[in-house]
């Protein structure tokens, strides 16, 4: 019986210790900058899905967060991940404590922040974004802050075929990471895909790429266009060489396994089976400085909403 008690007590104690650490860390962070007058304590919460790949986290997430931090110096910049699995893994494995959006906003509220921008690093306004929006709406309803604004994902608040501004900017940014391609060569972007209606973003991106006359097409792992549809497009375009790029913030599990893995159903294997020469590019969009700049701009746009 005593042993059983221990099983419960130990995690509890560890948990207490850890939250202790978390608090002190955030206090330290707060000390770094000049303490602002309480009425205009301002913060930006940068929200991403997260990744357990440490190198990808540095290159894709931290880099973008830092751009935002360096641009908006009079704001306190914080991080939140939406994946509880990744949050737990990082806590257990690396002793790296990351809040989910709700925890992060609660802390900001407790610390007396009055104006908060929540800037997602999501690509499309899908289910992840809906969930985040629900959290933000809850804090708004509770009047937790004087002002609370949610910024928009890379491709906008919603997918609107009549408003392609965000898409065109994203296409310009993607252009910067395309290799110099010869005849019969193409880039295939692998997006996540979703059952959510915002999956329409991927076909719209395809249309914009075509409009911009770029040798690139988009497919998705879990939505449409499917890999089969990608194969059909490649056959129609009569290309021979494919560079695979993740249309995701981070080159994590999907990029390493579903896209480029030595696995029967990876895109690399499936395309090679058809006779294409394939080069995987294992870098997330977060490494692309032009994409980072878009997220900085979206933060700026959200800040402007604050003062309205």
């Amino acid at each position: 019986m005593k042993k059983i008690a221990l099983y419960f007590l130990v995690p509890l104690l560890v948990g207490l210790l850890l939250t202790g650490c978390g608090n002190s860390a955030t206090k330290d962070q707060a000390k770094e900058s000049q303490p602002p007058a309480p009425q205009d304590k301002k913060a930006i919460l940068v929200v991403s899905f997260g990744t357990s790949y440490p190198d990808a986290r540095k290159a894709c997430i931290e880099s973008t967060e830092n751009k935002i931090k360096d641009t908006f110096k009079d704001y306190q910049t914080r991080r939140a991940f939406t994946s509880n699995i990744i949050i737990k893994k990082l806590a257990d494995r690396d002793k790296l404590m990351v809040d989910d959006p709700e925890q992060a906003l609660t802390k900001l509220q407790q610390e007396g922040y009055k104006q908060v921008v929540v800037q997602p690093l999501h690509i499309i306004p899908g289910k992840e974004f809906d969930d985040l929006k629900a959290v933000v709406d809850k804090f708004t309803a509770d009047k937790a802050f004087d002002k609370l604004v949610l910024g928009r994902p890379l491709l906008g608040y919603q997918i609107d075929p009549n408003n392609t501004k965000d898409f065109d900017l994203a296409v310009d940014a993607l252009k910067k990471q395309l290799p110099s391609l010869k005849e019969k060569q193409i880039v295939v972007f692998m997006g996540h895909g979703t059952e959510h209606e915002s999956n329409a973003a991927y076909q719209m991106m395809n249309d914009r790429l075509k409009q911009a006359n770029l040798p690139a097409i988009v497919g998705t792992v879990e939505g449409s266009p499917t890999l089969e549809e990608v194969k059909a497009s490649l056959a129609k375009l009569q290309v021979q060489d494919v560079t695979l790029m993740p249309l995701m913030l981070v080159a994590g599990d999907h990029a390493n396994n579903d896209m480029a893995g030595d696995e029967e159903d990876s895109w690399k294997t499936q395309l090679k089976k058809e006779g294409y020469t394939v080069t995987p590019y294992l870098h997330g969009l977060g490494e692309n400085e032009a994409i980072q700049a878009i997220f900085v701009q979206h933060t700026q746009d959200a800040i402007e909403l604050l003062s309205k």
Partner: protein
Amino acid sequence: MIRKIIVLIFSLLLTLSLSGCGSSPTTSAPQEGNIQVVDDLGKTIVLQQPAKRIISLYSAHTENLFDLGLEQEIIGVSSKETYPPASVKKPAFDYNGDPEKILAQQPDLVLIRPFIQKSKPDFVKALENANITVVCLYPENFNRFDDYIRKLALLTGKETVAEEKLRQFHQQLDEIKKTTSNITPKKRVFFESTETEYRTITPDSIPANLLQLAGGINVAADAKAVSKESSIASYGVEKILARAAEIDVYIAQSGAMNAGGSPASIKIRPAFNEIKAVQQNQIYNVDEKLVSSPTFRLALGTKQLARILYPEVFDSLAPLSPQTTLSRQELAEMVVKYKHKEFFSPTSKHYNKTSGHLYGSFVDIALDHPAFHYIETAVQAGYLAGTGNNFEPDKAVTRDELSRVLFQLADVKDTATDITIKDRSLCEKPRIVELIVKNQILTLDQQKQFNPSATVSVQEALAALNKLPQR
């Protein structure tokens, strides 16, 4: 109240059915109370006859029961089964659930392990109160594996099968040991059992013993168990770094229960670049199911460890006789060895996949086929493919097929040379043949024919492998 009545009725039925069977006049039936086993909680279990309705709540027990030929007798398994494939299809029971669900099945044997007894004592009690025979087994040390298998066999009347399985198992281990005993110098290994606090394994644990058989020297042989009866041992970053220059190979187990880090995360840990294995890129994952879980697949795990430590010996392609025509099963073995690809071991997630090849589903490749693991590994990696549910292991490999396999194995790029392949249209994937020929991995005959349907010898295939661009 209703529950109690149900329990009563079931136990009554059970007693009736048991006594019924016991009194049946079969000559081969053992004497009453003939089966006696002391389980790992020190409890003496007496069975009237071998168990016929077994529920196993631990995946290793399930796997071993299947290996003993008890597919019919297993009426329920745990919710975490992965091997053999047939185990995944059995009704699953969860010790976090309602014990009534198990009682309703009227098992005559429920197998658990100490972890379940410790974490869910009330669940176990509920079964025992309903007069269900609950047996708790788990060989924490490698030395207790045989004894554990014999207890399972005794409970189920499979003593003869068990002895034969154990003989084969030890024969496989002895063969590996014989090979590694001649290797010098031996590789020194750190084995990471958990990513948390960089724990290792106790010297008498199952992985430590396999490591020794595989010819590895455990640099953490001084590690002490985190608790009595545990195979996990404390170690920590300071002790690892103190041995940094000694660690030739860093092996971390991967899996759902206790898992170490991935090579990518181990590489970038602070100060880990002092470790020789990290500097020389000798960091590997090995599936805990193959090196920690007490099943006959430990022989495969030992082989996997030996392949990691001494690839020049265990992935050597020399034993294949060069003049013979290459068969598909030989090609599977050849490519897995060439790529040093870790043996595939299915996760529970694997069985949810809706397209592609499902592990173990080739009707012509039984689980005990000598090339089973090479074939499954090659197919799961996408190097080779079957035809529907058939693999056709003995079928000769054609040049056409070989070209497709070679193309999957390496990064073959287009070249500026122009070539004409006269029988191009006879090739299944002309573009692949063209690229393979352009890169001079396979060549045309004097009439500029590729001859796609011609078979290849082992020697020709080996020569082609050697011409592939290196990573």
